[in-house]
């Protein structure tokens, strides 16, 4: 009897152990649109473009054992003007493209042909609260992101993440990472990113990291003259 029980557990472990080396996750963006004030016409065209930009906007996270890349899934025929508008819209909601090189533990975004290195030390507060997302049991975690704006205002941004330990990558959308599992839902301010479709690959999918000059966030802000 004992041998049967041990055999059962061994088979279970083999069956449910990770048999994938890469994943591709599509995140749907759910954002609160900018309210258009008919009296204030000066920037309404831009605001309407930003709101329109977020119709069916999908972001993709590709991860393997080397790290990950997170970026918007732009249309193939997007020209420079479209790409620029997409970037403006994303930044309005604090969404950026991110790359993470696991070997060097470096998270960075790319701007103006510079790799701007970001902080990876998120002080997550774990909770026992759970919910199901895409058939995965997810746990809640929060992070109080404190920063000072260009105008000297102190801001405390509450970031809420729902992660699943069932997927063995401690990554997530928009550069957020470091939880004991993949983040399937992320929310802060007016922005929500929710996983809608996860693909698993046995083989390692290719991730290319941009080879630009690396700068810290402080160096980047000094370069553009707002620090």
């Amino acid at each position, binding site marked *: 009897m004992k041998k049967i029980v041990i055999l059962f557990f061994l088979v279970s472990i083999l069956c449910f152990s990770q048999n994938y080396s890469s994943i591709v996750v599509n995140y749907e963006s759910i954002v609160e649109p*900018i*309210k258009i*004030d008919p009296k204030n016409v*000066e*920037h309404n065209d*831009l*605001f309407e473009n*930003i709101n329109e930009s977020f119709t069916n906007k999908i972001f993709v996270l590709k991860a393997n054992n080397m790290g990950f890349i997170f970026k918007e899934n732009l249309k193939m025929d997007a020209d420079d*003007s479209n790409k*620029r508008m997409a*970037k*403006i819209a994303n*930044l*309005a909601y*604090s969404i*950026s493209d991110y790359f993470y090189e696991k070997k060097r533990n470096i998270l960075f*975004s790319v*701007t*103006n042909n510079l790799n*701007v290195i*970001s902080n990876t030390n998120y002080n997550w507060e774990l909770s026992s609260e759970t919910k199901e997302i895409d058939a995965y049991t997810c746990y809640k975690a929060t992070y109080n*992101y404190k*920063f*000072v*704006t*260009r105008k000297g*205002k102190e*801001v405390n*941004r509450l970031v809420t993440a729902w992660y699943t330990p069932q997927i063995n990558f401690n990554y997530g959308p928009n550069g957020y990472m470091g939880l004991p599992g993949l983040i399937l839902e992320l929310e802060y*301010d*007016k922005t929500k990113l929710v996983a809608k479709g996860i693909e698993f690959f046995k083989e390692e999918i290719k991730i290319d990291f941009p080879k630009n000059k690396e700068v810290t*966030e402080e160096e*980047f*802000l000094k370069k*553009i003259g*707002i*620090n």
Partner: protein
Amino acid sequence: MKKIIFSLVALIAFTLVCLANENQDVQIKSKIVEDECVEASFIVADAIQNAFGVSLTPIDEGELLLVLYEACDEKRQ
């Protein structure tokens, strides 16, 4: 003969002075145009944040300013 030479020198000097002034005007005009896009970028970035009622991190705002500047720069060319 002396009068002709003097007139010629005066004409050349006057032409050079006019050219120098024109160059200075072009440089000043360029500076004004550059500043307009920088100023416009800050105005739009502030407008976006005010419309939302939320503040962007310095990095996100920095990236936004750069992209807005590129858009403004492209329009005036």
